């Protein structure tokens, strides 16, 4: 049952960075959850408690309460801005790739993804090929497009960047889980937009090297 329900939630993160993004997500979930419960509870309680029982009854002539209004202006302001400020460090962590990265060029096409590796290996998802990446190593995706805007989105990384013609966007990962994880286009790009997805395969570093050499030999 819980496995069934977990399909409808964030699927497990596969990088440390994604874990930090999840932590922020849960932090916001707790804060907004509390606000949600407060507002909806007050609403339902007031709706029931203050319903009109006698047709001639009138409410209390309260026009306002300045201290109260200042409190409920400042408290959400502080909480919301704190959420923002609290996210800043993570923004820079996402933005700044570590040293020693494997640069992979990602090119969006209508409607497939192309991956160019440093050693010249060139994988296109429209030929049924799957890109492989090593576990525990830093991979930097440098993303662009040759036709229209696409969205390079890997839900398990919790990251996406648009593939924009004329721009080079980037995101990096250091995967800690072996397996296949879906890359989806999430910026509308035409008739086959919904079918523009391909899994990425995370291998052990050795398996990755074997795969990369195989691919290089194939193209040579």
């Amino acid at each position, binding site marked *: 049952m819980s496995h069934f329900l977990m399909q*409808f939630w964030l699927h497990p993160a596969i990088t440390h960075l994604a874990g930090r993004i999840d932590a922020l997500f849960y932090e916001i979930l707790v804060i907004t959850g509390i606000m949600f419960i407060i507002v909806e509870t007050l609403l339902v309680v007031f709706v029931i408690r203050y319903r009109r029982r006698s047709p001639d009854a*009138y409410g209390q002539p*309260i026009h306002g309460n300045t201290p*109260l209004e200042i409190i409920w202006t400042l408290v959400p302001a502080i909480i919301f801005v704190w959420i923002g400020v609290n*996210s800043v460090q993570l923004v820079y962590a996402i933005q700044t790739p570590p040293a020693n990265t494997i640069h992979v060029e990602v090119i969006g096409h209508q409607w497939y993804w192309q991956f160019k590796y440093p050693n010249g290996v060139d994988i296109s998802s429209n030929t049924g090929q799957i890109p492989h990446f090593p576990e525990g190593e830093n991979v930097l995706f440098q993303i662009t497009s040759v036709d229209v805007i696409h969205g390079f989105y890997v839900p398990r990384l919790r990251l996406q960047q648009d593939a924009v013609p004329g721009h080079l966007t980037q995101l990096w990962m250091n995967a800690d889980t072996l397996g296949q994880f*879906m890359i989806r286009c999430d910026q509308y790009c035409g008739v086959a937009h919904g079918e523009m997805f391909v899994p990425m395969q995370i291998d052990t570093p050795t398996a990755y090297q074997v795969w990369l050499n195989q691919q290089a030999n194939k193209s040579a």
Partner: protein
Amino acid sequence: MRTGWKSWVFTVDHKRIGIMYAITSIVFLCVGGASAGLFRTKLLSPNPVPWMSAQTFNDLFTMHGTVMVFLWIIPILTGAFGNYLIPIMIGARDMAFPRMNALAYWLFLLGGLVLMSSFFFGMPDDGWTGYPPYSVLAQGPGLDLWIMSLHILGLASVLGGINFVVTIITMRAPGMTYNRMPLFVWSSFATAFLQIFGTPALSGAVTTLLLDRHFGTVFYNASQGGDPMLYEHLFWFYSHPAVYIIILPAMGIVSEILPVFARKPIFGYKAIAYSSMAIAFLGFFVWAHHMFTAGMTVSTGIPFMVSSMIIAVPSSIKIFNWLATLFRGQVKYTTPMLFCTLGFIGMFTIGGLSGIFLAAVPVDLDLHDTYFVVAHFHYVVFGGSMMGALGGLYYWFPKATGKMYNETFGKVVFWTYFIGGNLTFMPMHFDGLAGMPRRVYVYPAALQPLNEISTIGAYVTGVSLILMFINFGHALVKGEAAGDNPWVDAKTLEWTVSSPPPEHNFEEIPVVTDYPYVIEPPAAKLRQQVAH
């Protein structure tokens, strides 16, 4: 009162123009709703279906978004409620520029028909956002009709905005100081500024699109030095303020209805009024939060993250003020009141809080362009704006038609709409968390149960609207006379005249001595008068 078709076609009466806006936009609501019904039916299956191609699916969600934003929710709130209510609420006989007002309506209708014609000539297929280069490369007349339509609608919107601003500044009755204006007027005042200052950016965006498509310019052609991101900036510089064009008048409607049925003054009048202006002002500083993943340096999002967090504050102020208005009230749950309390406050709160996730740059990098976003803005627009609009229709229907509808039936409409809306949009949060992108024709099979719930919800919502039309149709034919003020405690000026109001609203321009939220028992007033 004059009758016959000519009296409508040639009218410059703000009330008739308002009613024409209402009827026209409700027709467009049916078109937008039917489009959604069709593609939601497709989404019952995660796979391609034989009876709807991916192309048709794309056409339909594009039409759904464009129609609902530009032809339903903006015109019903600004065109219909704004036109009908603003002059009469401030004690004026008409708008400052009645003929320009009529022109704005006819332009709106024309713009709508241009977009409708694409059902016959080929529909646009790039979503309501129309991002280039796709929208430049897209073939066929669909996108050209879309651009032409947005141009005409934009002009109508600017004319309307100017008219509201001038009317509110210059035509207020004696004694109607700014701080005695009804809160709907305040919210429309803020909205009008957004219309005037935001719309030109949209017009610029779609003009450059047209030039790129047909006149060989390269604004958005990266290979020749253009930049698709320029369009996104221009588009959202309008379209984020447009979100407040869409929500502010609905907040105004809620602020009118709550005190009347809670039999209590509105709590914190000035906070509600001025927070509308604050939202309008701040609304111009958050546009790039739609673009955190669009190719800006990720840290460029930080100032927009903070401004987006700040703009949540005036909205939460309103929520607390409304709750405090209910506190120690004597609340009667009429149909309009249900739409405003459980409906607007209940659902808009969800949409507002889910916005906090998306305002945080790191979380947005995950959830952007997924169904979580679809859920978020539908809770705002469907659960907020449209909830307010429907509540407003129920509240002012007796005034505009002179007829009373069946109240029990109205409550059935509310509950159907409320349940249908939540069934449709609540599961979408979880689609998004599981990584389902928006605007996709096929999706992971594991998410089929959630999509089935959403589709059933969409059908229930459709039924609720049909029930509403029956409710109103029945009232028009068989409804009892409503009387001048069926709500007894409604104090804004439209309730002081007959239902429907006479052609020029007031025999004598009223003199205003207080704001319209002094709601107290008739006996108290009598006692006061005796004591004086």
